[in-house]
């Protein structure tokens, strides 16, 4: 498996491992079978309201539903010291009511209309998804616009306290009480320099969650939750003109905010090997190797996705075959590029079989990486990975809503600074790669002497 099972607040979302897991076929296969699949295209209309809100509309009538997808261009990277986890805590508060929506009504109104909703926070952005039957579009716009304009009118310390407890339990469930759950937090701390916004966890430190106050909520909303710092995608069974009129009606009155200054992170570079061990309540040790890699869409980023597939995507991938299939020294291996706008990391993790050592596993991993530095992968290995990636793009075109659906992807591409319909170009980043590009990415970005090595050992039996 290529994609990691990391919880979704990671930067991975940016680059949606789910989409990658899905893909498949054009150019290479065209040569083989003689037909080319249709070019990926997601036609859209785009406009901006006077208050700066960017709006993108896409019509897809295959199922009578509409996805209303809002991205606020703020994430845990915008947090200040002592308030880690705040962007995500704030996300929870967005569902608790606003001036014209009583506490609880956000959910009850949507459920009674047959709708579903969710939100997620990453290092770099916060997204909100509301999927409704097509007849409930205006209800969704009313709810989204009300919390964008009037969240603070009914916000109270009690509401903050309530969601603080929920978020702390989310952290307990996803990190403390989950096997190896604390490792990803440690790994980010080792990879990124102190003060870098990717060095702290999106879920936040417990003491910072405790410290978050009602006044923090007020300031954060005013600073980051303005329409000019957001983008709204509406995709599905819609009429363009009527939808535009509804957007103007409901969002037009939201006041514009001050521009948000871009983040200026400290330089991040690994200059040596950093080693660490930790313990957890687990029966088998797990090895993590991590590198700092090019930011999303930069040269090398796509090649490293292909590297992850060549290393750990399927039974014939280098590490899977060596560690799990042939020697059976490991139970599980994952390799993944986690791409973000301020930088990326590439992670390999391997869980040992009972009785096998981290040393022999790490030696085997290093041998396989060395082979890839010395000699490019075979044409078939690369093509196999590209065909999988291409198929996943097509699979991703079926869904308009939820996380990773077309609405979310349009917002993702827009947020990255490109055209919302960047699907074909994004795919071309992969299909244009050669085996030599894959080799070069390993050589340049995954050196043995500049990386992080983290081992999670079982706690001693008491």
């Amino acid at each position, binding site marked *: 498996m290529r994609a990691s099972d990391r*919880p*979704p607040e990671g930067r991975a979302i940016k680059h949606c491992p789910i989409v990658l897991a899905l893909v498949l*076929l054009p150019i290479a*296969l065209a040569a083989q*079978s003689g037909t080319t*699949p249709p070019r990926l295209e997601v036609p859209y209309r785009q406009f901006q309201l006077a208050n700066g809100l960017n709006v993108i509309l896409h019509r897809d009538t*295959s199922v*009578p*539903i509409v996805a209303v997808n809002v991205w606020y261009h703020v994430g845990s990277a915008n947090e200040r010291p002592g308030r880690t986890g705040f962007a*995500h805590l704030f*996300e*929870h508060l967005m569902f608790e009511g606003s*001036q*014209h929506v009583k506490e*609880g*009504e956000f*959910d009850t109104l949507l*459920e*009674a*209309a*047959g709708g579903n909703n*969710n939100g*997620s*926070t990453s290092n770099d952005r916060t997204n909100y998804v509301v999927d409704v*039957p097509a*007849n409930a579009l205006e209800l969704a716009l009313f709810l989204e*616009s009300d919390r964008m304009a009037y969240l603070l009118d009914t916000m109270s310390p009690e509401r903050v306290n*309530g969601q603080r407890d*929920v978020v702390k*339990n*989310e952290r*307990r469930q*996803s990190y403390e*009480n*989950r*096997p190896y759950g604390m490792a990803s937090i440690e790994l980010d701390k080792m990879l990124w320099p102190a003060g870098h916004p990717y060095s702290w966890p999106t879920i936040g430190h417990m003491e910072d969650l405790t410290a978050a106050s009602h006044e923090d909520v007020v300031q954060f909303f005013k600073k980051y939750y303005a329409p000019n710092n957001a983008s709204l995608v509406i995709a599905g069974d819609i009429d363009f003109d009527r939808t535009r*009129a509804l957007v*103007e*009606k409901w969002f037009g009155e939201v006041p514009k905010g001050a521009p948000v200054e871009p983040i200026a992170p400290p330089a991040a570079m690994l200059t040596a090997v950093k080693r660490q061990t930790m313990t957890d*309540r*687990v*029966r088998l040790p797990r090895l993590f190797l991590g590198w700092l890699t090019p930011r999303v869409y930069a040269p090398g980023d796509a090649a490293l996705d292909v590297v992850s597939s060549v290393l750990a995507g399927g*039974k*014939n991938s280098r590490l899977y*075959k060596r560690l*799990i*299939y042939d020697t*059976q020294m490991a139970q599980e291996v994952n390799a993944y590029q986690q791409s973000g706008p301020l930088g990326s990391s590439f992670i390999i993790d391997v869980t040992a*079989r009972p009785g096998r050592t981290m040393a022999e596993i790490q030696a085997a991993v290093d041998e396989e990486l060395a082979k890839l530095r010395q000699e490019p992968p075979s044409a*078939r290995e690369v*093509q*196999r990975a590209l*065909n999988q990636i291409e*198929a996943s793009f*097509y*699979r991703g*075109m*079926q*869904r308009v809503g939820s*996380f990773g659906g077309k609405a979310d992807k349009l917002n993702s591409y827009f947020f990255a600074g490109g055209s919302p319909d960047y699907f074909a170009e994004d795919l071309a980043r992969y299909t244009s790669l050669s085996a030599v590009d894959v080799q070069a990415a390993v050589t340049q970005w995954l050196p043995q002497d500049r990386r992080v090595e983290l081992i999670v050992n079982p706690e001693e039996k008491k």
Partner: protein
Amino acid sequence: MTRRAWPLAFGLRPLGLLATGLATLVVGLLGSATTFTQAGADRSRAPGLGPAPQLKIPPIQKRALANGLPVWIVEQHEVPLVQVNLVIHTGSGDDPANAFGLASFTAAMLDEGAGTRSALQIADEVEFLGAALGSTSSFDSSAVRLNTPVRQLRPALALMADVALRPTFPAAEVERLRQERLTALLQAKDDASAVAPLAFARAVFGPAHRYGTAATGSEATLKAMTAAQMRAFHAARYRPANAMLIVAGDVTAAAVLPQLEAAFGAWPMAPPAPRTAVPSAQQLTAGQVTIVDMPSAEQSQIRIGWVGVPRSSPDYFPLIVLNTILGGSFTSRLNQNLREEHGYSYGASSRFDMRLSAGAFQAGAGVQTDKTADALREFFKELKGIAAPVSEAELAKAKNYVALSFPSEFETITDLAAHLEEMAVYKLPDTYFSQYIANVQAVTAAAVQKAAASYIQPEKFAVVVVGDRKAIEPGVSALNLAPLRTLSVDEVLP
């Protein structure tokens, strides 16, 4: 971090709707029509809803191959992909009493060597096509599922047919998978959210009933299982008279049928081994509490319930609505109480596992360790409270949520095929999906109350808590729910 991973993961919605044969479903009406004026927004009340849209589902074209294998085809031309599922009417429910895990292991072995290809060759060829091919089994059925670019359908079908019909069960691959499965069992012991459902199933169904043990079996049965058993199981049960093909995607019936015939037509027609139904489990008659010790755990994983109903229950629709109100939606009583009101948990939910025989009803959550007893008290408050009549508003919200969100369950060909599988496995009538919404909307408050009286009897429920015994036992014990015992993880997962 997402807002609500847990309730969704715990899952509860029934599978949704599909029209067979024809085509159009009115999804219901809610509220009054709205006019779309440009004037300033009136926020004094939420906008009304127009008439609910109609969901158009292409018809199911029902055919059969020459050997009798039924084929259901639904054309869906949105993307150049096709989903092909071979469903076999056999599953863990057919495991022999001394070989729990056989159906699961057999299904997992199908792509580990088939026809003339090795496990590695199969994987390489499937991936090179850009396809996904997997084999799996549940308590009720087994399946080989293919999702492929439509222009690779022919070679992909050839691989699929080898995997489904001509697996070779190589000894070395059996050993490899055995070790993988044994290690996975070992790893499950680290994870409270993995231990809890296994401990709960054991408490409700006991060690002898098939549902009391994981589909993958136990350490002892896994160690004893042989390739010969798997070959025999496959030969006896993977038969055309016991199977069917479901096709959804960018194909026409006329074009795909010859390809299916070429791939599956040679499957001999011999009758399958007769199927014995999983016996109904003995219902619990008195409450019991089990603490499974997980020292230092920051949360306790709670499961509460007893034997529920089979998928064929005549009370299916009242139970779906009942569960939506109790723990099957974000605004359900359990989630509102445990998460929104008290903040004890990231999410609480409930569900009925409906299988060919009665599976469990269960409510559950992960709760912070120091609130374990408080959370149990609130669970029981809600489980008892559901006996009282539900209000019309709560009933309408639940029914609309289930009925009106139907269309969203048909976005992908994979979803579509899964709905058709449900129809086939549980022998649902042709009108099932076209009548689904009407059946949901017909549920009355009285029917919900009656279902609650029959199927939610908290004083007889089994309670399983996987957590830090030292910290939670005094509080749990003081609740005096029922006789309490404590077990180690190794005792629960021998």
